[in-house]
């Protein structure tokens, strides 16, 4: 290998969309190739874990780590790549804050296994076989990675230098970050301060071109129930849009095509818990009768009726940020003395 800086990209518990987004920087990928040597990138090049284990510590200059920590293998790879990398980047929503995989923190490992391996119309598993970390066979012992109870983000297992949010991060943001790294490596430009890079510092609404007025929501609609007006704020039309509680950087892609923001860029700076802020925001913009005009019990029923049109509040408000939320996961019966 040449003495070019080394780049690695690894997927843990992820869908592969981050790799696609990275390759989506189009011809800039040639610049990346010109500046970097690929040291490890299972999606596009044939490297083995043994190769990484053979590298000296700090051999990889930049490691883009995407995917959440779902299994013991994910965690081992995080530790290995941290040890071998100078700069560790939590790349994409999964590595940053758990993303879709971490939604399973709202249930249990047993329930997840039940759905995946046993109780599902497309499953044919008459013996009820579930994956076992250790299996004894005639030839010896077989092991597979342990499936954790709780999905974690990358920064909960290793030290992370930079975070690029997004599901997946937008290619122009990826390139902006890579460009800064390339400038630092080739021209000695200063690296950005550690933390979130490749994103804005305001809410998605700031980037959204829809017209905003006073929000007075009478009920929420699921996307299939309405044909949204193309110019007016989606939230004002009763379509759940996380834009108000989500960091900018994507260019408000989803709301501009009529789909409420899913919240994939995570909380805006200074916010710990995106879901809590969303609870706060949604509750603030409801239109349920004027003060003093109706009885309190009636008012409460009206509010509850509006909330009935949000079928899965935790899954909606924490769709991407569950692993980074304050409570982190659901409480399972048997913890404490709680009853359901």
């Amino acid at each position, binding site marked *: 290998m040449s003495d070019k800086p080394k780049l690695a990209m690894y997927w843990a518990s992820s869908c592969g969309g981050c790799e696609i987004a990275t390759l989506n920087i189009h011809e800039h990928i040639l610049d990346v190739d010109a500046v970097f040597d690929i040291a490890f990138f299972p999606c596009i090049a044939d490297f083995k874990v043994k190769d990484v284990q053979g590298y000296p510590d700090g051999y990889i200059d930049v490691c883009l780590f995407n995917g959440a920590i779902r299994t013991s293998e994910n965690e081992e790879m995080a530790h290995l790549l941290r040890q071998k990398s100078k700069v560790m980047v939590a790349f994409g929503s999964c590595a940053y804050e758990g993303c879709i995989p971490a939604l399973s923190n709202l249930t249990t490992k047993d329930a997840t296994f039940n759905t995946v391996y046993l109780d599902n119309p497309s499953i044919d598993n008459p013996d009820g076989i579930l994956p076992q970390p250790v299996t004894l066979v005639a030839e010896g012992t077989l092991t597979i990675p342990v499936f954790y109870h709780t999905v974690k983000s990358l920064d909960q297992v290793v030290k992370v230098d930079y975070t690029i949010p997004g599901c997946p991060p937008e290619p122009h943001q990826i390139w902006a970050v890579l460009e800064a790294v390339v400038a630092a490596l080739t021209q000695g430009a200063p690296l950005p301060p550690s933390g979130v890079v490749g994103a804005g510092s305001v809410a998605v609404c700031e980037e959204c071109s829809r017209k905003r007025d006073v929000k007075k929501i009478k009920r929420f609609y699921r996307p299939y129930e309405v044909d949204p007006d193309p110019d007016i704020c989606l939230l004002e039309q009763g379509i759940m849009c996380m834009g108000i509680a989500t960091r900018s950087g994507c260019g408000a892609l989803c709301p501009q095509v009529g789909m409420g923001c899913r919240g994939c860029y995570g909380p805006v700076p200074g916010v710990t818990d995106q879901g809590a802020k969303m609870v706060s925001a949604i509750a603030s913009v409801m239109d349920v009768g004027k003060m003093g005009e109706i009885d309190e019990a009636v008012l409460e029923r009206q*509010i509850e009726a509006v909330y009935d049109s*949000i079928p899965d509040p935790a899954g909606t408000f924490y769709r991407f940020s569950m692993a980074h939320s304050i*409570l982190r996961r659901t409480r399972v019966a048997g913890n*404490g003395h709680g009853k359901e």
Partner: protein
Amino acid sequence: MADKQFEPLIIGFTCNWCSYRAADLAGMSRVKYPPNVRLMRLMCSGRLDPEFVLKALRGGADGVLITGCHPGECHYLEQNYKALRRFLLLRRTLKQFGVEPQRVRLIWASAAEGARLAQEINKMVEEIRALGPLTWRDVISANGDRPLEALPAEEVTA
């Protein structure tokens, strides 16, 4: 647990204009209420960020009490309505996290209702005592993972 009664820890958020004074009145009138509740004063129940509740629960509280002015009596016109709407949505969300609805309560108490507030606190302490400890940090370690680290202290500007 047999010889020692479980003493729940409840964080109570009170409104400067009503319930905080109600608690004060309870004290001055020598109305007793259990020391399990630790009261914090906000300017209004509408100041209550749902994050405060989550942080209290994760930080070791077994329950959270939110108090505000009666509907129509808010010092800031209708922020207690906002508090009610936030509370109802937060309660739904918390249910999905496995937090029993009794653990987070909203109570209206005017500055004159010291005795009523004390009575409601009594009731809440007994309800949570019956539910048992929440110990949120162990919720994760109970599944074989490391317990949750404590949240860093943070200055919240007014």
